[in-house]
């Protein structure tokens, strides 16, 4: 029952540094507190990305000058590496002597209790992004959670994004939830990073200008949130990236002096198109303009027969085998576009009250190689005898990953099934380049 856990000014500076996180910081203060106050053996912090978990905990521990060890779990490839890092880190930070390595969690417990036995101060072991640990198992997490119970002066802090019930399989440790920021909070946070309107003629930067900039900035952030960020990029980091990217083109008219700062709505109308496009939402390595052209031309320049083979593979994957006769038999030439009525259900049995799923949505189905060859022969405009060359082209398509093996059996086995690995748009483009009307052959 201590009067106040932390000096008030400390909390105030933290709250200034991290706006809109007052309840979380207060809870942290209650749980971590000072050296005299007790701490629970394990604490779990959870919240989606970019809600300030890592930054706040680190700054908090720095500010209260607690002794702590920081382990970034996602950087450890094996459990052994994680254990060694923890033991090395704790030994170093707690001022113990290095007595060898700890390869497993049992040895780790021994090492840590040795290193911390003489410590008068509380020690905090922060496991950042613990849910991203490779090779992590529930037993491992449970053991890590128990470390704090084994060693009285140790508190283990777990940071993870999605809470998992019974992660530590122990009676529940205190959780602190870092809620996602709302629109108002996000804008408030971004207001800390107001960017200048570039190329302004005014020589000296006055208080007035700053105020105007803040006004435009906040309005702008609100618009971006409503039009783009709310839909796809809620977290502050993504939001800020979008705002950063769009800010300069947006305020260009102001910089050039065409618009005033208070004329926000007409400025918005001028740039209305900008908020409709999605270019700023999708991360692209290729610059936005070039990407569109590239996608169209980025087709493999395949040999003539390979293109037909690919079309045949697509048809084999997406058409039900039952309908092959309808589509590909020469005698049935006129009837091939005729579709049967309601009776065509897919390969899976479904009751009539359920809606039918479009075949294209179900993804490619596996087919035997013979079927591919039969369809290939049927769709070719002229006859060609099967030769090693055709087989080789199939092999080439496989190595290009346009065809993939769907079963685990050997390639040469007759029962091996295959699957096409290209989308409709790509196939249509390929088919057009050899003047083949693939639309006629696709079952609806």
């Amino acid at each position, binding site marked *: 029952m201590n009067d*106040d856990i932390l000096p008030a000014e400390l909390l105030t500076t933290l709250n200034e540094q991290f706006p809109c996180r007052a309840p979380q910081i207060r809870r942290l203060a209650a749980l971590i507190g000072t050296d005299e106050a007790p701490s629970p053996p394990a604490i779990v912090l959870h919240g989606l990305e970019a809600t300030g978990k890592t930054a706040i905990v680190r700054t908090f521990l720095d500010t209260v000058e607690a002794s702590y060890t920081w382990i970034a779990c996602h950087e450890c490839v094996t459990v052994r590496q994680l254990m060694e890092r923890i033991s090395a880190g704790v030994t170093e930070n707690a001022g113990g002597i290095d007595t060898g390595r700890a390869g497993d969690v049992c040895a780790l417990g021994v090492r840590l209790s040795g290193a911390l036995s003489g410590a008068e101060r509380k020690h905090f072991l922060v496991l950042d992004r613990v849910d991203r640990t490779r090779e992590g198992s529930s037993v491992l997490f449970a053991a890590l959670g128990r470390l704090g119970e084994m060693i009285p002066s140790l508190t283990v802090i777990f940071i993870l994004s999605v809470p998992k019930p019974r992660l530590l399989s122990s009676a529940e440790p205190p959780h602190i939830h870092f809620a996602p920021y709302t629109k108002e909070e996000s804008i408030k946070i971004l207001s800390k990073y107001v960017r200048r309107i570039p190329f302004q003629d005014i020589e000296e930067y006055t208080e007035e200008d700053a105020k105007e900039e803040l006004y435009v900035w906040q309005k702008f952030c609100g618009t971006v949130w409503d039009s783009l960020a709310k839909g796809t990029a809620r977290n502050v980091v993504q939001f800020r990236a979008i705002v950063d990217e769009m800010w300069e083109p947006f305020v260009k008219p102001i910089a050039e002096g065409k618009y005033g700062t208070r004329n926000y709505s007409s400025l918005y109308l001028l740039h209305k198109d900008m908020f409709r496009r999605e270019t700023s939402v999708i991360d692209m390595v290729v610059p936005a303009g070039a990407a569109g052209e590239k996608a169209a031309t980025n087709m493999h320049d395949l040999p003539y027969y390979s293109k037909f083979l690919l079309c045949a593979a697509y048809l084999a994957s997406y058409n039900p085998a039952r309908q092959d006769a309808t589509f590909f038999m020469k005698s049935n030439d006129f009837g091939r576009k005729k579709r049967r009525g309601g009776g065509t259900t897919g390969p899976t049995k479904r009751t009539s009250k359920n809606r039918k799923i479009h075949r294209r949505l179900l993804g490619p189905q596996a087919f035997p190689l013979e079927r591919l060859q039969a369809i290939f022969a049927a769709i070719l405009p002229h006859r060609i005898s099967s030769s090693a060359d055709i087989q080789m082209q199939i092999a080439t398509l496989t190595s290009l990953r346009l065809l993939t093996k769907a079963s685990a059996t050997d390639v040469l086995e007759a029962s091996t099934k295959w699957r096409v690995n290209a989308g409709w748009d790509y196939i249509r483009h390929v088919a057009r380049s050899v003047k083949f009307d693939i639309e006629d052959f696709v079952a609806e």
Partner: protein
Amino acid sequence: MLIIGARGTGKTTLLESAISDLTEEHKGEFLTVRLNGFFQTDDKIALREIWRQLGVEMELDEKDQPKTTNFADTLSSILAILSHPDELRAPDEEGAEPAEEDPSSTTTTLSVIFILEEFDLFATHPRQTLLYNLFDIAQSRKAPIAVIGTTTRIDVVESLEKRVKSRFSHRTVHLKNPPTLKGFWEICKEGLSVDMDEVDSEINGSSDEDRRCFESWNSHLENLYKNDKQFQRHLRRIYAQNKDPKSFFNSCILPLSSSTTSFPTGPSFSLPTNQLGEPDSILSILDGLTDLELTLLIAAARLDIISDTDTCNFQMAYSEYTALTSSLKVASSATGVTAGRLWSKEVALGAWERLAEYELLVPAVIGGGSGGGVSREGRMWRVEVGLAEIGKCLEMGRAGIGRAGLGKWCKEV
């Protein structure tokens, strides 16, 4: 002997207090070896740990321990030590051969208590070598040892092999949660109130003011339980949910840490919910999802019901999403409400994969996360939450502000 009970029923506490009582009575007459199934994940590690703990307790040099490479040697040397209590004090450097040439060693018999926490995990070790040997020694009275296991699993005896089971004494103690609310409160009160006798004995010369302060605190607690409606509801909720005193104490941390010594104001448990509590389910992250992610999730969950399969891929969910959004657009153009935006496939695929990262979607085939040669859009996933759950969440406004409109999609299929 086994102690079985749910988490937080005080198995370990009971054991530790018994041991500390024993230590007072028979100091130096026994050793304790504590093992935990979470830490000693296989018999080899467990054996090494036994060696170490025995070594520490018997003040052996660490160099005396055998090389850890040979499992059989280690086991036999430990067995030898345990089986020859007369020569307990003299394991020599070779370790594998207990020192029989040292007849002058002390002949005091030391008992060893083995405590195996999470006993069920030891039963999963291959061939249950450790358990077999421990039980065998205990049963055949070669050495005075006692094996005590604690576990949460009631059926743990069933997981023992036949030869191990037959050597087990079948003595079990069940610890239960308090059967009544009153009993639960007694436990919680014990944790919160200040023990006056302890105050008198430990803090010598405690001032009258302190005494008064503690007394008023205790009576305040009693008062809270009897009269405060909110406090009662809070207590009852925890009792109904998990009967775990620990979660009650968790909920007390914040009010206690903010309370001061100016009694009898004390903490008021007017908190709406347990702020430090564990989230109920994965649904609690719904309010952090973007509109697009949430809509895709709803679309995928709808597909579960519509097409009567429990798996779906991105293509199916996206087409459902497109249908939903455009239907909304048609409806809203009549009423004049701004409709949700229809995002392109690339953006939606990103959102879809983020849902998978949050484990709201799990791959339908094992190892399907890496695809198995199928393109990203065609991979099959299973939705982890039901449509009705999402709908309820939206209705209660727990999934963010201004999203109640989406709840309509959860109801009309």
